């Protein structure tokens, strides 16, 4: 049996992360997703949901975040949506990773990690929602400077 698709909805509260992670774990275990894409899936959801909650609702209004995973056989297609303020995460310049320890600023790595590990990524604003789409290959690690 595989879970071909799962669509989760949660309020913009960090207290929801535990249930969300449990649902992703249930998905990856049931479908026997290999460790690398399973990790990337959780990381992408973790980083983007945290960002949406932390930055997307500046006025503190209640919002709704969507996490949709589609199992395509050779890849996972992850779609993250939120009704927070419009923000394109892939529009910002990547962080400078070259400086010395003293020069390195703390933070600013979440989007970079996800973007690097995904096989493809896209952003659109649609029906008042930010829509981020990510593709994670299930086979050989195709992205990034990842170790074997």
């Amino acid at each position, binding site marked *: 049996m595989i879970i071909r698709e799962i669509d989760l909805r949660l309020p913009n509260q*960090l207290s929801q*992360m*535990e249930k969300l*992670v449990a649902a992703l774990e249930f998905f990856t275990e049931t479908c026997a997703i290999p*460790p*690398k894409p399973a*990790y990337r899936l*959780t*990381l992408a959801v*973790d*980083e983007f949901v*945290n960002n949406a909650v932390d930055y997307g609702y500046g006025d503190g209004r209640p919002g709704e975040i969507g996490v949709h995973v589609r199992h395509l056989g050779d890849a996972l297609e992850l779609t993250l949506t939120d009704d927070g303020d419009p923000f394109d995460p892939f529009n910002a310049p990547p962080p400078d*990773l*070259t400086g*010395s*320890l*003293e020069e*390195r600023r*703390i*933070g600013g*790595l*979440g989007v*970079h*990690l996800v973007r*690097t*590990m995904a096989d493809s990524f896209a952003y659109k604003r649609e029906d008042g929602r930010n829509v981020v789409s990510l593709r994670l290959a299930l086979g050989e690690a195709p992205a*990034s*400077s*990842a*170790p074997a």
Partner: protein
Amino acid sequence: MQIDRFIEQDVIITTVKGRLDSSSSHKLDDFLAEIPAGNNAILLDFAELTYISSAGLRVVLKATKLARSHGVALAICSLVPQVHEVFDVSGFTTLIPIHPDRGAALASFA
């Protein structure tokens, strides 16, 4: 997440077990906020760390900067492959000494 600390060969070893994410990272942050007296080296043994997100990296970088500013050596060891990938992609592997196992890390301090 479970954090433990003990001393071996004059090195303060901190082990972290489980997930280091936005909901748990402040615990490690508090734990690493104090530079121990006596200039012992610090080793973060992540053998049982199954997951780290950017919130965890933030704490690790902060602790590394703090150690450096106090002239204390800090190293990390025993990363599982997926966590190692996160360190690579973040450029941390060029900033912080990463050792394959605890023995190698302790030898590097000697």
